[in-house]
């Protein structure tokens, strides 16, 4: 069952089109982990994460210059090539320069309707939570218009339950990864597939996957690694690391623990709970909270007996590039060697990284 998750990611466009036809409902594209998908789900629509491809962004390059983060350019390129023609809307959160630029770029260059900008405060304060809650209320009204369904407090609480359950399942897989029952690639496939199919369907799949993984005897002779990465929209990089004898047992990736680490408090008023969780949840570097960011990294590091760290940041990603010297210092202060890659999402890139990963793992084996 676990192997089939990769297929869900690779055939995501056909899967979404098929779901749309089968259910006669709408599909909404989402950028980044900052959009409360529960609201889209409660409106009876399918939220799908927009991903790029490891291919030349021949169309995207006509709209964005070269020295920018390659992920959003690749996403626009996919849209311009008609791969996202089934979308009934796109939600662009106020996250970073390049994602913000997606709002103008998709409106100007694609025929996809409802390109919606979600205001997200850049500073965490109680006023910020109130402002974000108000914006979620506005967001809810727009989703009701797009879907034609109303979102009751009940249906929202139910959606939060389904999402929290998915987070628990992913958390258990995260613990199993430490014990060597689930590989780093498999966990990332679980997270990626979770972002692409209806949640309760993914919960059923996860039940089977965890059950299957539970019967395995722990592998884990590989070199134990922590992966800190910005955007990785497929599992090629982690696959390369595990092919070279690495064993990814902890991470802080948006396509990893950052997506499910904290759940939503379903006792409180739903919008308030969503605002608190999605604003203050795992701080990604751009939230300007260095302390909380490093505490989170330390939390994921604790009890993982990691031997080395691989940091993979996409080129021209200011949020990660400013943090890198300090993150590196933090790891090296704990005696953890660090290997750094500046990712460009080109096809030929993986081959050039193999040599360094093999050397790093040989060094860590001692």
């Amino acid at each position: 069952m676990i192997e089939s998750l990769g297929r869900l990611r690779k055939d995501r466009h056909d899967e979404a089109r098929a779901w749309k036809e089968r259910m006669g409902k709408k599909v909404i594209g989402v950028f980044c982990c900052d959009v409360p998908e529960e609201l889209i789900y409660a409106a009876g629509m399918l939220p799908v994460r927009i991903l790029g491809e490891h291919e030349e962004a021949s169309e995207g390059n006509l709209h964005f210059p070269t020295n920018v983060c390659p992920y959003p350019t690749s996403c626009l390129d996919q849209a311009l090539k008609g791969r996202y023609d089934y979308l009934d809307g796109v939600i662009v959160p106020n996250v970073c320069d390049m994602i913000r630029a997606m709002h103008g770029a998709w409106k100007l260059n694609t025929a996809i309707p409802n390109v919606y900008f979600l205001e997200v405060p850049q500073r965490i304060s109680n006023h910020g939570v109130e402002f974000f809650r108000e914006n979620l209320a506005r967001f809810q009204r727009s989703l009701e218009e797009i879907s034609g369904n109303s979102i009751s407090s009940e249906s929202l609480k139910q959606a939060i339950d389904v999402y929290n359950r998915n987070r628990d399942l992913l958390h258990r897989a995260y613990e199993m990864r430490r014990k060597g029952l689930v590989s780093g690639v498999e966990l990332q496939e679980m997270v990626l597939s979770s972002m692409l199919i209806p949640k309760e369907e993914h919960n059923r799949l996860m039940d089977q996957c965890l059950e299957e993984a539970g019967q395995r005897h722990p592998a884990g002779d590989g070199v134990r690694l922590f992966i800190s990465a910005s955007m990785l929209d497929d599992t090629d990089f982690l696959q390369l690391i595990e092919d070279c004898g690495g064993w990814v047992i902890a991470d802080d990736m948006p396509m990893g623990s950052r997506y499910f680490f904290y759940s939503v408090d379903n006792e409180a008023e739903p919008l308030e709970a969503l605002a608190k969780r999605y604003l203050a949840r795992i701080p990604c570097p751009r939230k300007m909270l260095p302390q909380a960011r490093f505490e989170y990294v330390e939390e994921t590091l604790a009890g993982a007996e990691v031997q080395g760290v691989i940091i993979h940041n996409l080129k021209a990603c200011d949020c990660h590039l400013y943090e890198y010297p300090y993150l590196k210092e933090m790891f090296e202060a704990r005696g953890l060697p660090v290997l750094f890659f500046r990712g460009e999402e080109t096809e030929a890139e993986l081959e050039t990284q193999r040599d360094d990963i093999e050397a790093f793992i040989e060094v860590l084996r001692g």
Partner: protein
Amino acid sequence: MVTSTSAKKHLQTTLEVPALRKKYYAESLQQGTNRKVAWCSNGIPSEILEAMDINAVYLENYATVCAAKRLSSGFCRAGERAGFSQDVCGYARILMGYLLGGEEAPEAPYGGVAKPDFLVVNSYSCDSRMGWFATMGRTLNLPVYVLDAPYQPQGGCTEDVNVIYSESQLEDFVAFIEEQTGTKLDRDKLREKLDLARRSHDIQVDIFEMRKAIPSPMGAGDAYTIVWPGMYLTGTKECDEFYQRLHSEVSERIEKKIGIVPEEKFRLLWSGLPFWYNMALLNYFEEFGGVVAIENAYFRYQKSLPSQHKDPIKDMAISSTMRRPYADDIEQRAEITLDIVRDYHVDGVILAFNPSCRLMYVLQPELKNVLDRHEIPNLSIECDMADERTYSEGQIKTRLDAFIERMLSGRK
């Protein structure tokens, strides 16, 4: 390899700015102790700092001073040696090089800047600023205040939710400054500073309005310098008087039909930031009858709104929500650029692709597509606005010469 540096100034008043700037930095350096020192980014309400008598040092401006004095390669290299990638903003690398020093860093202009007590940065310009200021905060172990506001990519709106949030962030900002200085904000003084700042802004809008005249009375060569007082001496008498003098000089030049060049053959718009270490490029076209009549960075085109509320903080919150200072969505930018081309009778656009300034850089290709669709001649040149090492004279001059030939051939 750069041959020339500062731009030729066509107006007498512009020549006053370097002295103002030198005095500003000298004063800021001497009285470090009795006034709290704040290292600030652009785009923050400097009226509040002015009203609370904060000694504000604007780092981006200091970076352009370092670049103009041809020190950028030394500072950038020192910044990069300290681990800051060449992808990130040229200003940040210069300041990190200045801050972390090392033998790579050259001698700082004006004897450096006053040591800070705290840092202030806004969140709605670019990620680089936030990352850079967070890094400096960690290095100096000092508090960094992030001034947040709704992003509003489609420009101004009147949503009271946005006004309430903007107001709350301004009040938090005031509370933070009060805590740092131990003094209370005098709201009447802030009102006075606000009115003064608005007046000098409105005069600038009049001056920019006058720049539509043919022949162009004031080009980008002067413009990038004359905006300095309005940005860094906000709410002061000196700043207000400066713009009065500038206004009269420009209107006199229009009456007497004094242009930058005797016979104007083509008018250009410079889109994006200039290359601070080679501002003379802005005069390069004059020899061929061309003028850079207008620029879209620091473009003053909307008069300040009348006062929206008795309380100055509420007033600032309402007006900044109604008129977003940073409309960066490509649709707004394209509209503004097309308006400029129409209103300023522009014949061609120079698109300065500056790879390390994400905010300006991201928009340029789309601007080029819009200009091409409207058949407005344009030229793209790629070079960092602050890091001199990316400048290649031969390649830039070949492109500029060819573009001039194209502009002149269109004339025949």
